[in-house]
């Protein structure tokens, strides 16, 4: 039975609710539509016709900002970083979550606790020490190898300005939440299944591979869905980890358009659209899963 949510006589309240919702929804969508429309105007037209539809629709902005921004390369990098670290995060979170949830050990409490602290720390606040850490390690190892005569000066790279460094740090930054969610989830898997497998002589890795992974698909899905937009849009960390253009991700490339190119509105708008389109499409494709995932991710204390 459909319940009557509101008493008669609150038509006014209802209208007010619609107006407030409508205004907010409009304020959310309109700037994006405006941006999209303006990306098809030349900069000259934009200056005289800011609010209207484009008079001469043009794709030139897209063509030239794509070229200036080298977006094909950056999008490739972004895909690599996002998928690579999503897979890494999910794998390590499940593995560690399994250990915390099902394997008794004295150290579990302490290590689990230290991961939980990580949920409260925002990794961005650590970007300076993180930068010093990665550059010092690279330089330190590089110097040793150089003194052994194996490589030239400044050639060695492990973490700074490498894809590997970005991936490791992205994985690490998302592990606390991931491990927490997986541990809670795997705790809910009946212990009897695991014990039965143990009696059959399966080791922990075997159990993990054949039982846990299969049963944890929902949480793995949630974790990935939650992480993909965050990783794709990540800026603060990669900004300090990478300085070479061919290693940069899409947000770094977009950011370039806020500096020297800022008076060339046409190209800037096209770059912004290129920057937001992939995740909007992702959102349209997976809206239900994202909605469910976000509410689930914040559910647990």
């Amino acid at each position, binding site marked *: 039975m459909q*319940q009557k*949510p*509101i*008493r008669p006589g*609150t038509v006014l309240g*209802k209208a007010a*609710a619609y107006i407030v*919702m409508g205004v907010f*929804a409009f304020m*959310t*969508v309109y*700037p*994006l539509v405006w941006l999209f429309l303006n990306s098809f105007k030349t900069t000259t037209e934009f200056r005289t016709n*800011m*609010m209207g539809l484009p008079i001469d629709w043009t794709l030139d902005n897209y063509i030239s900002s794509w070229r200036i921004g080298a977006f094909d390369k950056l999008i490739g990098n972004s895909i690599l970083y996002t998928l690579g670290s999503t897979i890494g995060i999910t794998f*390590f979170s499940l*593995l*560690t979550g399994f*250990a*915390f949830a099902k394997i008794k050990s004295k150290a579990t409490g302490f290590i689990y606790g230290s991961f939980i602290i*990580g949920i409260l*720390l*925002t*990794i*961005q*606040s*650590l970007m*300076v*020490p*993180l930068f010093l850490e990665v550059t010092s390690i690279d330089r330190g190892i590089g*110097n040793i190898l150089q003194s052994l005569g194996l490589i030239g000066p400044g050639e060695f790279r492990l973490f700074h300005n490498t894809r590997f460094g970005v991936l*490791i740090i992205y*994985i*690490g930054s998302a*592990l606390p939440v991931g491990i927490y969610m997986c541990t809670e989830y795997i705790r809910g898997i009946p212990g009897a299944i695991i014990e039965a497998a143990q009696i059959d002589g399966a080791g922990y890795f075997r159990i993990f591979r054949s039982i846990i992974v299969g049963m944890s698909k929902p949480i793995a899905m949630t974790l990935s869905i939650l992480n993909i*937009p965050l990783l*794709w849009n990540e*800026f*603060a960390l990669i900004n300090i980890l990478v300085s070479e253009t061919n290693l940069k991700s*899409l*947000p770094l490339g*977009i*950011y370039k358009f*806020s500096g020297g190119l800022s008076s060339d*509105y046409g190209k*800037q708008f096209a770059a*912004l659209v290129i*920057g*937001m389109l992939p*995740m909007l499409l*992702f*959102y349209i494709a997976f809206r239900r899963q*994202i*909605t*469910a995932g*976000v*509410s*689930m991710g*914040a*559910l647990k204390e």
Partner: protein
Amino acid sequence: MVLPSFLIYLFVFGFPIVLAIVLSLSNYGGGKMFGGAPWRITGFQQYLRLFTDPYFWNALKNNIYIVLISVFGQLPLGFIFAYLIYRKTVKFGEFWQGVLYVPAMISTIVVGILWSIIFSPYGPIADTANHYYADAYSAKISGIFQATGGLADPDALTGRIIKASPSTINTVFSDPSVDLKDFLLSYEPGDTATLQRDLVNLLAPRWNADFLSRNNVAMIPICFVTLWMWVGTYLLIFLANMQKIERSIIEAAQIDGASETQIMGRIVLPSLSKVIANSAILCISGSLSGFALILAMTGGGPARVTQVLSIYMYDKAFMGAPDYPLANAIAIMIVLFSLLLVALMFAFERRFGGKE
């Protein structure tokens, strides 16, 4: 099985924290950490420097603004919207929810640049306002021309135009009563249409709320955009948890004649108290790391007034001559500040939170 994750975790969180603590107590000046120029522990010097730096307090103040707008803006708005949808006060709940969540999916950099254009003195807000001003001014001018008979009576015309454009006249003419008259007389008497148009272009008042470049207001757009981005997320979280409340409880309350405010205050709010507390924690840590948004919107400018702690730290470490010890001290302050806020939140929840 835990080891690889734990090593990565130590590498990304543990070691940097230790490093930050050590360096914040040192006089490390960049360069090789070992075997380079010697550096040593110098105690709490950097923190003293920090506490006497007015920019630190300014950044902290801005951070507190953002935390406040987040906790007391995003959460209540998100809650209200969720409640309206939950109680079916508005229909099409999925639609509203879907739309309001969109900003959370867009890169902060894109959002920041987009809004910095919108708020800029050459942006659409200013443009719309200027069109409006110009139209109003144009009407005024043609009224004056009609009333005074145009160039037939240049003195009266000059006087009234000066009166009609108080905000701009002195910026255009150094001695308005003389210069403006000369200007008017330089036109052919029959050419009043051109003259009127030129006067509008020259003297119409202009929108001058250059939000992002004025000291006292530059934080307002940043707070607004923070709100814009995240309301949908909390709407989504609250709504999902409201839908978990047993329908029968609310129905029973309604049968007993409970009012809408009673349902909200006695049933919905208490059963969400834990979720609200968690969201507040999420919100606090999120707003403390609001780095990319401000970098893209203002870069901490003008003259550092919109700096938050993370931008201030970034400036000290990566802009100009690096001051790593101070930057690390700031990092430690951010961590302590966020832990403090979260602890406050926990205490608050324990004190006032509903029983479940």
